[in-house]
């Protein structure tokens, strides 16, 4: 008799994995491949235990458990938010019908595609952040990096669970494909452009977790509205973890700005590079870059795919149930600003349903703005007049109506030469990257931190900053 595997302890879950032979079989095939992928593409730095949060249930209290864990032994679980048996579809042509517990044949291909694209982004960021552990500014930050990484890994599991449980053999093949595409690979890159960019330094990591993971929040938010209930519930739970990633980004940039402000005050100069700090205009360039690359993730401003997904009930709007309209959007219109060849902006009126990506992007931009406000308050409190800002949404875009135009951060449409000349003032140059990299020396001593970033105000789970978050 082979030993019976205790699935519930090995893979914490609330999907009755122990009773689901089909799902067990699928995961048994997939799990070793995932572990190989993690060994090859996951964090380079080896540790002897990281103080990690592990999701163990979905209830309001005590959903997570904190302890030192050997990273490869982290229990990537499968959790769906609790089911609301009365849930109905909130939008599109199936509005008012009960939410689907199974994939309708008609929408199988579209749903699979949405899940694969979402799934593809999750492990990508682990790959992008592979080397960061080697230059962590503190044990606290190192711990956060691993926390983000294992949870992105778990989010991959979440999507893989859906593919395994609901999409048959093809779903299993797609689940494997998620491990075969790799960030930045010249042969098999990740599906979306932003996930093939490098995350080369810790400032980029904070920016990524602030801007790019925030895109993830909004994408998950629209999938949470899906008529396909398992997808909806999965995303709802993922959003809970995603919040921490954005916390890492928000407070990370906070702490860089804080430290820069301190150095500016201390040395009475904006040029703090020589004093081991990151100048504010360089922080602005990083914002410009990461923000615009993340805007590209929202896709084209007008999108018939998004409209089709909406009508079909596959993907809703942010906070769909709170919107006060007919949730069909075929009779409403909205405005779209587009750049013209002559250097002016024109406003088109279009059916609202064709502008769903723009709608979501609008929500996202408003959210991003709150972080900028927060960082500027630090500057204000320090009596520094410099202000950080989000660039115009037309700036530096590769996707949508602004791509192919040259638009400055303040929204002026200029010729190519002017744009090329301005680029070094607006976006990080190779010298800028080299400078930031020169600051990235690992600090692995308890309670110590690198020169360019301030310590956090609080530790994790009530622990102090100088707690030994990582055993090296």
């Amino acid at each position, binding site marked *: 008799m082979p030993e019976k595997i205790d699935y519930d302890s090995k893979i914490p879950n609330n999907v009755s994995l122990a009773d689901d032979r089909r799902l067990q079989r699928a995961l048994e095939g997939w799990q070793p491949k995932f572990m190989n992928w993690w060994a090859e593409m996951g964090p380079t730095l080896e540790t002897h235990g990281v103080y990690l949060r592990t999701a163990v249930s979905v209830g309001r209290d005590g959903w997570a458990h904190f302890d030192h864990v050997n990273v490869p032994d982290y229990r990537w679980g499968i959790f769906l938010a609790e089911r609301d048996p009365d849930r109905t579809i909130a939008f599109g042509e199936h509005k008012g019908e009960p939410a689907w517990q199974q994939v309708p044949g008609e929408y199988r291909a579209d749903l699979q595609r949405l899940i694969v694209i979402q799934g593809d982004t999750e492990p990508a960021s682990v790959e992008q952040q592979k080397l960061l552990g080697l230059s962590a500014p503190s044990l606290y930050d190192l711990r956060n990096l691993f926390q983000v990484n294992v949870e992105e890994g778990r989010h991959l599991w979440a999507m893989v669970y859906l593919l395994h449980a609901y999409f048959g053999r093809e779903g299993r093949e797609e689940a494997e*494909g998620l491990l075969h*595409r790799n960030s930045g690979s010249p042969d098999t890159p990740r599906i979306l452009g932003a996930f093939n960019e490098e995350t080369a330094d810790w400032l980029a990591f904070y920016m990524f977790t602030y801007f790019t993971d925030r895109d993830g929040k909004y994408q998950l938010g629209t999938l949470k509205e899906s008529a396909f209930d398992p997808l909806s519930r999965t995303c709802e739970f993922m959003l809970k973890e995603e919040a921490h990633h954005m916390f890492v980004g928000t407070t990370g940039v906070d702490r860089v700005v804080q430290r820069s402000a301190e150095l500016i005050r201390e040395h009475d100069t904006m040029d703090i590079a020589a004093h081991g700090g990151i100048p504010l205009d360089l922080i602005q360039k990083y914002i410009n870059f990461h923000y615009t690359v993340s805007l590209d993730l929202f896709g084209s401003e007008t999108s018939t795919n998004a409209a089709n997904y*909406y009508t079909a009930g596959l993907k809703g709007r942010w906070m769909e149930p709170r919107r006060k309209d007919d949730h069909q959007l075929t009779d409403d219109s909205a405005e779209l600003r587009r750049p013209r060849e002559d250097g002016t902006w024109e406003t088109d009126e279009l059916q609202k349903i*064709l502008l769903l990506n723009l709608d979501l992007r609008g929500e996202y931009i408003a959210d991003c703005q709150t972080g900028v406000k927060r960082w500027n308050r630090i500057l204000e409190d320090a009596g520094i007049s410099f202000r950080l800002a989000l660039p115009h949404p037309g700036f530096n875009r590769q996707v949508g109506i602004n791509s192919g135009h040259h638009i400055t951060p303040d929204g002026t449409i200029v010729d190519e030469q002017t744009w090329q000349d301005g680029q070094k003032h607006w976006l990080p140059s190779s010298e800028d990257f080299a400078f930031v990299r020169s600051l990235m020396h690992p600090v692995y001593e308890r309670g110590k931190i690198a020169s360019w970033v301030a310590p956090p105000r609080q530790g994790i789970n009530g622990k102090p900053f100088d707690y030994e978050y990582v055993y090296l």
Partner: protein
Amino acid sequence: MTKVSFDRDPGSYRHWHLRIEPPVAWLELDVDENGGLVEGYELKLNSYDLGVDIELYDAVQRLRFEHPEVGAVIITSAKDKVFCAGANIRMLAASSHEWKVNFCKFTNETRNGIEDATANSGQTYLAAVNGSCAGGGYELALACEKILLVDDNSSTVALPEVPLLGVLPGTGGLTRVTDKRRVRKDRADVFATRPDGVKGKTAVDWRLVDELVPRQEFREVVAARAREIAARTSRPADAQGIQLAPLERTETDDEIRYPNVTAKLGNGLVEITVRGPESDDWFLQMTRELDDLILRLRTNEPELGTWVIRTEGDPQAVLEHERRVLGGGDWLSSELAHYYKRTLKRLDVTSRSLIALIEPGSCFAGMLLELALACDRQYMLDGPPIDDEDSEERASMLLSEANFGAFPMGNGLSRLESRFYGESDHLDWLKRERDHPLDASEAVELGLVTDAPDDIDWEDEVRIALEGRAALSPDALTGMEANHRFVGPETIETKIFGRLTAWQNWIFTRPNASGPEGALRRYGTGQKASFDRRRV
């Protein structure tokens, strides 16, 4: 309506880059989004309209005549991540029915021309699918001999017409999948009903593509395959090509005139006259002019439903040209014969009533007799010319070797075999009557004409025949003519033109596709099509 010209040259292409690296040619699709032939749509994602396809036709044609040194042609995309999204849907949705059908027909003919070059010209086509490839984009790949697909774990081939648009792949996609690539019918069914297509190993296993190539090595592997294939070509590497100069054409409201072909337009008719040889390069010039005329009339004159075809000139001179070309044995002779074959095929699939008038002074001999045989009816004047009753001149026609297989139809048969399908004795008899002039009574006896009225009845008979024709339903005529013209066996080509396009045309006019709530109309609005569920 937009008046369409088919004049193109590589220097003015908006959508294709043609690069010659002997023995290989690269044809890269790089559609200019704002370069649509008609206002009102953007050609996103390398999607195409008639204008894009006219350039492709021009390129395929020039490669055959101007570049004997080319043995393999690579069709690929110059855009990143997308090969071709197929026919532009907004263009289709906004087009009139006859525009859609005409577009499909021309596109089909170009695809067949690509296969013809591969089969007969030593110019083998390879599709280098370097990104997503859907609908007409995959049909373009299917027209190629080999399909190489980039192995990046996300690029797919797809025929999403049925699930997304409620129509069929209109340029032979379904037929080529099953008949040419021999994809099993159940897999073909799965493939053609899934909107997202098939990628990677499955695409190879199902025979939808031939080979997967890693992304980084893509161009090198494609070029290497093309060179291997080109090495087997029969084309002479050192021969000089023939430049296809711009056509000489003058156009007025009621006439299109070329040096060797004239068309008079009016009264619901087109009267076409093809003149016999007057110069050494007559064969190619006349063929190009006829080809151009057929395309222009089909596209720009949809209401001129009957074409009357005459010839004028010396029958012996026609035969001399024919012997030179068919007996030439070199690559250029072969190209000329195949080009004329394709032009006759264009006539065969033209949805116009075709009537040949064989009169004194005409030269329906050998290859030009094929024009009369392509017609639905042939009338031969049995008597002197109408305007000169004292003349000794009489109409005659002349069979030659060329009428017995040199210019096969899409069904693989000669026009005589099609006319006398299953009557081999009759064909033997006709063979014995080769190479000498046949007068009206002989032509009647041999079954080569529909009727041979004398000079007294001629004008009335012809008028009544034409007026009678004009009174009939054009749709019924289109269907009837296409039935009668293609007897006997099916080929991939006849299936595509006969079955597939007939179904497609029917589906195009159904409310489920073209109605206000149809899939084609609703596409891109974010609203779903509403189908009448009754099966017809």
